[in-house]
């Protein structure tokens, strides 16, 4: 297993920090990519961030109520070695294998 850490992404509009309102997953849980991960509040609004990663939620780096800056570690996931890709990046989902039949089968 490999540990991958997700940092607070740039939320746009020049916002540099956000407060963690509520974790929407628990330690030890297997989370799917795009499943709700954490609710954060900026000075402008509150949003839900989806999980960038499928894997086991290994560690929260911030508690509910704490403020983090863009680029600070939020959460670490444990993922199988072959799913990790380059550490710190989100692996690209593989295209399903596709067989193209170029000719009709002959009798």
């Amino acid at each position, binding site marked *: 297993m490999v540990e991958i850490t997700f940092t607070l992404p740039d939320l746009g*509009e020049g916002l540099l920090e956000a407060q963690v*309102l*509520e974790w929407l997953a628990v330690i030890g849980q297997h989370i799917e990519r795009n499943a709700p991960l954490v*609710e954060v509040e900026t000075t*402008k*609004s*509150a*949003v*839900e961030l*989806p999980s960038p990663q499928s894997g086991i939620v290994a560690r929260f780096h911030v508690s509910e109520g704490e403020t983090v800056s863009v680029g600070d570690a939020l959460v670490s996931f444990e993922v199988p070695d072959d799913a990790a890709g380059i550490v710190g990046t989100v692996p690209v989902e593989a295209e399903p294998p596709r067989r193209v039949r170029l000719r009709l089968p002959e009798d």
Partner: protein
Amino acid sequence: METMTQRAVTTCDGQSIAYLVEPGENPVLLVHGFGSAAIPTWDATGWMKALADAGFGVIAPDLRGHGSSSKPHEAADYYSAVLASDLATVLDAEHLTHVDVIGYSMGSQICRAFARDAPGRIRRLVLGGIGSVEQFSHWGVDAIQAVLLDGRTVADPVAERMLRAALTGPDPDPAALVACAQGVMSDPVVSPPVVPTLVVSGEVDPVAIGAPGFAERMGAEFVSVPKRNHFTTLSSRAFKAAALEFLVR
């Protein structure tokens, strides 16, 4: 959301209303609040995913004056009844007669007008971020114009924060927002909805002050979200859970 599409329909008074569609069996009509739009209110906050995961489709318009919809500058173009008729136009375009409806903040006021004018089109109604005080008339036209048009500061900190936030929505048009506030406040809805209704408000939301009494007078169920303000109630899991539990009944 991968399957979400954006469409638009033209109303009988010639305005274009943009809306998002997430296909699904039981579409829920989502009505955003003042100075926002469908995507920041319903997508960024996790609502569209929560509804899709629960098996609901979604229809989420940008109200006129907001987002990608037309932005006329006359208050008469924004009476609550006019904004409510836009909701009917969107449902007609999607060939939907009868839907569940969720509104937030000013969107809840528009939903009340829709329930008044077209009660047969609503199955169950969820009103979020609303209380006993109509906020635009409480703030006053002078304060609304001062912040939105002149960039001045006003004494009421709630008005100040809400109006400033309205200017940070997608593609804001300050003159359209002023007209919208004036139109909505000049067409208040007083009658309680005749459809099953749930009111949800944050415990520390000044915009939704008096929400428990408001819900009682509406004959509605009421859920308070602990420790949440006007912005953080919208994104809370507690609000989504309460709304979903109410809609599946």
